[in-house]
């Protein structure tokens, strides 16, 4: 299965702390994307990192990709209560264009 697995399943931190979430996958990928989902809402795209990239930044977000370990991490710095959400990684199957497989997600709670 191509499915990403994320850890931890749940993470609770104080406002201002950093939050790190990890995603592992099983086979080769074209790219890996991180999405955020507020409770009961649709997903919002955060960052796409291609298989030939190692690190990307966007505001308070930093994503790394290690294709040798088949893993990625999402770091949110200086977290805010508004960052409370579920975070999913999604991998694109290089053999099946259009199919992104999502991990089970990490639920992040940022306490004010």
């Amino acid at each position, binding site marked *: 299965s191509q499915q990403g697995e994320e850890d931890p399943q749940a993470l609770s931190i104080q406002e201002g702390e950093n939050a790190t979430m990890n995603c592992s996958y099983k086979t080769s990928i074209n790219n890996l994307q991180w999405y955020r989902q507020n409770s009961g809402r*649709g997903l919002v*795209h955060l960052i796409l990192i291609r298989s030939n990239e190692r690190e990307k930044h966007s505001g308070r977000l930093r994503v790394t990709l290690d294709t040798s370990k088949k893993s990625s991490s999402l770091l949110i710095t200086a977290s805010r209560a508004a960052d409370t959400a579920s975070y999913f990684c999604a991998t694109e199957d290089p053999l099946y*264009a259009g*199919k992104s497989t999502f991990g089970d*997600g990490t639920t992040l709670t940022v306490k004010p």
Partner: protein
Amino acid sequence: DAMVIQNPRYQVTQFGKPVTLSCSQTLNHNVMYWYQQKSSQAPKLLFHYYDKDFNNEADTPDNFQSRRPNTSFCFLDIRSPGLGDAAMYLCATSRDLAEETQYFGPGTRLLVL
């Protein structure tokens, strides 16, 4: 401005009663997807359209059908909903298939009584 719109946001249906969920987009994207997401689980791809070409996932039940009458609209038809079909249904679009960001609608939560 809403780019991917799903109606209704909440849908209640009876066991076995056909139901249709609607998705529209203002992005003029080629690809539209339907996902099923059950509580605390990953979104699961049901099928997608690339323009008019329909691509069904191998494990999508026959109970689920889709129509895309034009670029802007895509429908999910559940012919005979069972209790196990209660879930959030997410519509997404992307400009193309490979290496493309998907833009999600807010979802329709389906309850089956």
